[in-house]
């Protein structure tokens, strides 16, 4: 099931909220787990089997690690932790990277591999990272293992976060699984976040997707710089509204059921540097890599050379985590390069530049990165970047570019404004008036967002089925 499906928003969610209220406190985790099993199995029940196996394995590994930590078996603990992490990574590599690896080996050696793998289970990149977080936190003693297997299963499989995160660390969530309270305020905030996220994803990201697809349909041979930049902006903003919107929905859902997850995006496109950008973009992933890769490698409290090595490892892995394609590796290295430049070369210079200009530069650099991220292969990415620089194609501007701009500029402008705190601070100003009128207006606004999102969710099925008819 997807969070943006009719079945989720109109049946699953309201039913879950009502059931959660009815069921007494002690059964609530079991209820959430049951709902999660239903949620995962809805699209493909085989996914649930695999996730269940992962849960069982990690549950016992975590218990063993907790036991070893208490009994002081350091070497054994390291061995168990190492094999636990390796098993989780093996699952991830098997489903996500084996074909990529074989293709590359094939390209180097000339040996052809013919391998068809089953479809990767839902959220594999996310739940394996959650599991690794659990093993590390328990081994380190940051958090105790969860004894109740149902509670542990909920940590891995909670439907709010299973499909696309956020990758909540074990030490952040374990305590909340054991005990949490549901205040009226968090319920209300949860719904507000959920509706906002839904609208961001379904209305804004969905429409930006149309703009981006129109650009992608233009052959690179005749693409102008104007068109290329429109596509780059559209895909950058689409990704932010899609993933950011999804994260809002997930965090809102968690809040509806009494959990409190940290935010995953914090207006990344207003960052004043790349370092700042990565503190605001997909925060849960960045923080996972920091805690479980970068710091264990020694972090920055090492020699400059070693620090560069540590950063390189983190960024190559970050790139690969996003997908099995060289474009993602290059994208990771691009960010590594920018971060190293900032950290070691430009630190004194950037401090003198006004923050607005730094924000604009950071945004443009991020946009350039996303064009590589979205390219189907390295050659496409290279040509696309040339078009953005006005080299080849139809020069700086052409009729196609003007046409796409005339049908997309309002959406792009709206999306750029929406990726700054502009709307949120306006809403805050209105709400601090604390007049009944402000609450009514606020509620009407959310009602409008919900209505609009529903319209987009329903009409999107029109286009996908239409071609069979004509």
């Amino acid at each position, binding site marked *: 099931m997807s969070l943006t499906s009719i079945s989720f928003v109109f049946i699953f969610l309201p039913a879950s*909220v009502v059931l959660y209220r009815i069921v007494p406190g002690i059964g609530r985790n079991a209820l959430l787990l049951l709902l999660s099993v239903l949620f995962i199995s809805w699209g493909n029940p085989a996914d649930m089997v695999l996730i269940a196996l992962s849960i069982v394995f990690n549950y016992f590994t975590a218990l063993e690690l907790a036991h070893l930590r208490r009994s002081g078996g350091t070497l054994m603990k390291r061995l168990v932790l190492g094999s636990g992490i390796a098993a989780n990574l093996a699952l991830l590599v098997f489903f996500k990277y084996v074909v990529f690896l074989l293709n590359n080996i094939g390209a180097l050696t000339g040996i052809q591999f013919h391998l068809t793998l089953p479809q990767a289970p839902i959220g594999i990149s996310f739940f394996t990272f959650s599991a690794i977080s659990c093993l590390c936190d328990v081994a380190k003693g940051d958090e105790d293992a969860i004894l109740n297997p149902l509670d542990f299963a909920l940590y891995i499989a909670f439907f709010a976060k299973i499909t696309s995160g956020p990758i909540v660390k074990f030490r952040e969530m374990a305590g909340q699984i054991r005990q949490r309270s549901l205040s009226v305020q968090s*319920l209300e905030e949860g719904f507000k976040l959920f509706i906002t996220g839904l609208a961001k994803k379904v209305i804004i990201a969905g429409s930006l997707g149309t703009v981006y697809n129109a650009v992608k349909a233009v052959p690179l041979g005749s693409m102008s710089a104007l068109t290329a930049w429109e596509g780059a902006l559209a895909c950058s903003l689409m990704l932010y509204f899609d993933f950011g919107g999804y994260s809002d929905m997930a965090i809102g859902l968690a809040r509806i059921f009494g959990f409190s997850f940290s935010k995953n995006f914090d207006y990344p496109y207003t960052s004043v540097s790349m370092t700042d950008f990565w503190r605001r973009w997909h925060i849960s992933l960045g923080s996972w890599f920091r805690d479980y890769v970068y710091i264990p490698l020694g972090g920055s409290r090492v020699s400059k050379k070693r620090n560069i090595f540590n950063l390189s490892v983190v960024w190559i892995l970050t790139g690969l985590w996003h997908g099995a394609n060289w474009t993602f590796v290059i994208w990771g290295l691009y960010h590594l390069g920018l971060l190293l430049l900032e950290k070691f070369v430009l630190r004194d210079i950037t401090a003198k530049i006004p923050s607005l200009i730094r924000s604009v530069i950071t945004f443009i650099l991020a946009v350039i990165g996303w064009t590589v991220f979205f390219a189907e292969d390295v050659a496409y990415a290279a040509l696309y970047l040339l078009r953005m620089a006005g080299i080849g194609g139809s020069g700086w501007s052409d009729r196609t570019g003007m046409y796409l701009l005339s*049908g997309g500029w309002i959406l792009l402008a709206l999306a750029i404004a929406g990726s700054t705190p502009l709307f949120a601070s306006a809403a805050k100003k209105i709400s601090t008036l604390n007049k009944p009128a402000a609450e009514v207006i606020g509620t009407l606004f959310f009602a409008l967002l919900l209505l609009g999102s529903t319209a*987009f969710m329903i009409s999107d099925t*029109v286009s996908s089925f239409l071609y069979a008819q*004509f």
Partner: protein
Amino acid sequence: MRERPKSAKLWVTCMFMCMVICFDIIALVTPDREFSENENRMLAQKPTFSSKSLSDGSFGKDAEKYLSDQFAGRDVWSTLSFFTKNSVFKQREMNGVYIGDDGYLMLIPSACDPASLDDKLAAVNAVAERFGDLNQCMMIVPNAVTVLADRLPQYAPVSEQPQQLEYISDNLHGVKFCDVSGTLNDAAYKGEEIFYHTDHHWTSKGAYLAFCQAAPDLQINPNNVRFVVYTASESFEGTLASKSGCHSFKDKIEIYVPKKEIPISVTYFDKDEMRGTLYETGALDTKDQYALFLGGNHPTVTIRTTAETGRSLLLIKDSYANCFAQFLTPFYDQIIIIDPRYCYDSVDMVIRQNGITDILYLYNADTFLTDASLVDFLAMQPAQENE
């Protein structure tokens, strides 16, 4: 500093729950629809539950389609989404349809493959060579994006059809090319309704103007017959409205009936039916009102008349010809209408068996440039198969 007590109201929560549950109840109590007139398609029905459909995940997918298709007020939601995209975001095209000026929806033509066009022209020329004694004409009608170019959204890509039609005209041998572009362009410029606003077909008016223009090539004199124009419908909403989601215009369908009507018989071989009229008035009660003309597309339709001109026409066509046939009946004893997209006969057989004297290829440019079925129909059959 004293902190203001935090408000603990559940406005948005209540709004969400009430709204969602209300829509669920409405969807539950309203009976399921089988067909969506607005979208011109069958709607998903209740999925069947079985251990198999559950285990392979198809139940979940079907249930999602069902919920979405049978959602309360589905058409209103589509209109709301169209309004947001068109009026708020100012999107200029929806799902392959330009939202043009004056309420015109225009189908964006598909890309043409030059090699397959050459194959088609070669096949047409080969037929011309095999049957050199027949009067052969081709009319390729430019589409709305070409004729109504001034109503396209600003900066929309310029149609390549004028060049493509010129290429076709230059590469025909033994087949006359009826160039109707100028006539249609002039009429459109004067504000005549050449195309429906909500459908990809041309109007009877457009077809009539093209007919008059092409008459000399067809070797007929249109002045011999006077037509009376009747309005058959004023509530036509065509496929482009469904495709784009724009439901803001209703078209008028006109029919042209010869003042001196002659008896005709229309035989639909696929339905094994014979009628005394070109018009299937029952279609006016359905979504696809353009099917008024010859009941829509059929593989083979034969029209027999009492015109007594001694001429027999083979009309090889797409749906643009359906409303064109009404102008032809007074001039031929027999008209064999073949739609190669659905017909698996061969041209040689049809010509020999029916004593054909004239051939007219009538297509709209988009179909002609992209549909490959014509080549198969025109391919020469070995002689023994014909006998």
